[in-house]
């Protein structure tokens, strides 16, 4: 992994240190600014990932129905699923590929922050090997580790709690509401597991890393707000008015055949194993009327609006 340290990690480290010299030597501020810059540069990829992810979520009721229908014929199920994705213009790789591209950048940033913090003498000595001959880089180190009320080098319980809280909020925004008890339990577990795990890890790691996670979570929330058009599952009573208005326009523009699914009245009883659509709008594969469903969405939209006001 020599190339990894000498290339991406060294680039990130030297950028962090050089940026810090322009930000009053405050490493905390540097972490925040660089995280924002990097996440902003990766915005197109993040947006694509979020959109693909949302589109996949939207197809889940239909996927579930196919799974039920072709439970005994795996090959047919795979074919039908691919057909469904193709018809809907959704690529399963659309979620994974942007995330895979971003992953090395996150890792490089994460590792760079660890190295620049240089907690032990070994870390500081090791850091010198990765520094480039930029005039400002050598003299500015070691960086000032005090930021706000905490030290970036030491763990801080308050900061660790913030990691958990921001991660929970960020996850909650994109967690679909489902009716199936199993899926509900699964999504609930995921919603709590990640924040708890990262909060726990942050309890024993330098607060500088926790600051990176907090910043990253907040940026994720902002991006999600603009990409999905609202606070998602965070909004009380389901969808935001903006979200639902968008869906009305989409539903009106698309014929039921083209959309591949009818939208039914929210009062319809959901079938077993079929996911309830997000934001309280229930979907069903068969039956139901297009006009009725639009009425239902409009009704929900109004509710969403009143909740927000």
């Amino acid at each position, binding site marked *: 992994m020599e190339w990894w340290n000498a290339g991406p990690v060294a680039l990130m480290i030297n950028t962090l240190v050089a940026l810090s010299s322009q930000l009053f030597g405050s490493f905390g501020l540097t972490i925040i600014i660089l995280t924002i810059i990097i996440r902003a540069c990766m915005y197109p990829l993040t947006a694509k990932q979020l959109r693909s992810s949302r589109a996949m979520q939207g197809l889940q009721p239909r996927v579930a129905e196919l799974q039920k229908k072709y439970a005994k014929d795996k090959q047919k199920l795979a074919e039908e699923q691919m057909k469904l994705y193709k018809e809907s213009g959704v690529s399963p790789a659309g979620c994974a590929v942007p995330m895979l591209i971003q992953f090395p950048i996150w890792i490089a940033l994460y590792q760079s922050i660890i190295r620049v913090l240089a907690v*032990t003498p070994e870390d500081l*000595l090791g850091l010198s*090997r990765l*520094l480039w001959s930029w005039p400002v880089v*050598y*003299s500015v180190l070691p960086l000032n580790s005090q930021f706000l009320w905490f030290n970036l080098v030491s763990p801080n319980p308050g900061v660790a709690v913030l990691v958990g809280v921001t991660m929970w909020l960020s996850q909650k925004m994109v967690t679909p509401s489902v009716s199936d008890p*199993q899926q509900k339990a*699964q999504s609930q577990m995921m919603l709590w*597991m990640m924040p708890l*795990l990262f909060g726990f890890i942050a309890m024993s790691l330098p607060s500088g890393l926790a600051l990176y996670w907090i910043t990253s979570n907040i940026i994720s929330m902002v991006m999600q707000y603009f990409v999905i058009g609202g606070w998602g599952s965070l909004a009380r009573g389901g969808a935001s008015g903006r979200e639902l208005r968008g869906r009305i326009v989409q539903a009106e523009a698309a014929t039921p055949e083209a959309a591949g699914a009818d939208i039914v009245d929210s009062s319809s009883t959901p079938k077993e194993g079929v996911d309830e659509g997000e934001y309280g709008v229930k979907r069903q594969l068969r039956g139901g009327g297009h006009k009725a469903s639009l009425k239902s969405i409009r009704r929900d939209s109004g509710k969403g609006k009143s909740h927000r006001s």
Partner: protein
Amino acid sequence: MQIRRNRKRWGKVWLLVALLIIAGVVLCGCYGSQPKGWSGATAADGRLFVGSLDGRLVGVNTSDGSPLWLDKEAGTLGTSESNVAIYGSPAVEGELVYLAGYNGKVYAFVSESGALRWVYPREGNLNPIAASVVVSQGKVYFGCSDGSIYALDAATGDKLWSFETGTKVWSTPTADGDTLYIGSFDKKLYALNTGDGSKRWEFEAGGAIVSPPLVYENAVYFGSFDRYFYAVDAASGSLRWRSEVMGGKWFWAKPVIYNDAIYASNLDGKVYILDAASGREVAGAVDLGNPASSAPVLVGDKVVLATEEGNVYALDTAGYQKGLPIIDVREESGDIPKSTSRRIYAPLSADNGVVYIKAQTASEGVLYAVDVARQETLWSRSLVISEGD
């Protein structure tokens, strides 16, 4: 059917949870390095003392490397459950050996037996101590990561005074008469009155100071993280010169002086030879080919230097030639097997023409005694002392 499907679903959930936990553990593992320490050796009266990687003061005879004590509890820093990293070399004064641990405590051991005489602070801990202590005129001085410089009574361990700098102090102080010189991360070199800890003067360099200062003929010499080497007046703290040449990386180790020439090793793998009066280069920098974080030592007219990767050179002060390594610690030596991961970070020490080198792998320290004139390894031994020794 439903039960099987549920099992399948829960199986996936648990797999995901397991992956998350593994990811968490990996992230924890990525977090920097654990402090290991790189204590050097100190020779006094036919005995050699060094801090080991398992958090102990080890004492051996300089003649053959045989241990001074075998008691497992003797010379132990902290508790036996956790190893304390030791970065500073021991300091010897009278019957006591002083050593600071990264656990934020300073210990005084009896040199004969390794028995603990006192520990400071008696309760609790200071912030990590990442340098050596210095003993002079009945006082023990050291810098601490809490940003303070402390003076203790060498006999009792009682605190006499402390002086607060702006940030961490990872430099070893140098005492000269009634003045203590020490560098800090706040880019300043401080001159303190050893009597009461009051500040005589301070000098601000362009970068942090980790390199212990060298005092010679009313001047204080030290290197900085701004990659320059400095000479300041010992009495007033005014700048005498700043080196014209800039190092490739940081000046980390304490320099040595011989015939008015300063030999300052740099983490760029070069040794800069500067005129003590003017700061100009006496000769071109000697390239060791690998970073030298270990402090060099003067043996006769040779400056002995070690590179991190394990080569030790005896630099000729007449022609400034490094020659071939006098020892490569990666090679097999006596009972010590060959190991390509063995490195040298600890300061070198010398006594009676013999240089003592502490090399280390991730888990084991090894001590070497090398006769510099004859370029011969006299003995080598592991610092893991067993009853068979």
